């Protein structure tokens, strides 16, 4: 028997790691991976809460999140490619034409 809150905290840690990754990583692709990490954390919460409420819909949500993540990944990577084509860098600190 594991307290449900452990699962939730684990999901929270993953989410926090994702946020941290977004804040500290410089490679756009890695940053994007951090977002995936955050989504994974959320997914764990969904499943955990589903167990808590005995509502299977929580598990269904995970599918939708995955689909969304997949779509995002497709588009996101395409955008990254486009950026790489114009800027020839993946360092997010260098993508700063737009400012002030």
């Amino acid at each position: 028997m594991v307290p449900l809150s452990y699962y939730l905290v684990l999901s929270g840690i993953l989410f926090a790691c994702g946020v941290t990754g977004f804040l500290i990583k410089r490679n756009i692709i890695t940053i994007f991976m951090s977002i995936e990490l955050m989504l994974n954390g959320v997914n764990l919460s969904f499943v955990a809460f589903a167990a808590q409420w005995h509502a299977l819909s929580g598990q269904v949500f995970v599918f939708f999140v995955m689909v969304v993540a997949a779509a995002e990944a497709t588009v996101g990577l395409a955008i990254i490619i486009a950026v790489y084509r114009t800027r020839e860098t993946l360092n997010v600190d260098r993508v700063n034409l737009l400012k002030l």
Partner: protein
Amino acid sequence: MLHLFVFSMFGLVCVAGAVNLLVQRHPINSALSLVVVMGSLAVEYLLLGAEFVAAVQVIVYAGAIMVLFVFVIMLLNAGVEDRSRGSRVAMLFGIPGMLIGSVLVAWVLLERSGTGNVAVGALPGPPKVIGWLLFHDFLLPFEVTSVLVLIAILGAVVLASHPASAREASSQPDKREG
């Protein structure tokens, strides 16, 4: 006890993978760490009884999406992150903010989520039932995701194709570049 042990072990692996993702400076390493995270998460799902979700996690997430990532990393030949000047705001505000938020949320989750323990396989999610939900209660979201996928395809086509016009771009620089 075994339950807690398995949970903890894969939980630790999971967190370790996540931290490794942050620590690694080559995107490929990060990507592989992410795969580790996803794999161990799948185990956690299994512990919770969400077998179908666990399977899909491995197939779709680790299998498809991460492959895409690795592919792009390879395609763009992304190397080690260079140490560019960081963002002060992210360090001064973002990280403390993240920490405060995490602590608060963790406190809420531990102290105030008001839930008891869960047994192994607390809520089994057999594919049949999931399928029923998907095609009945969540029929609309399911259908709508098709639009999402369509957009994703379109987007990929639009943004990643036409290398000609991209080349045009370098010959016709925008005035912000000039």
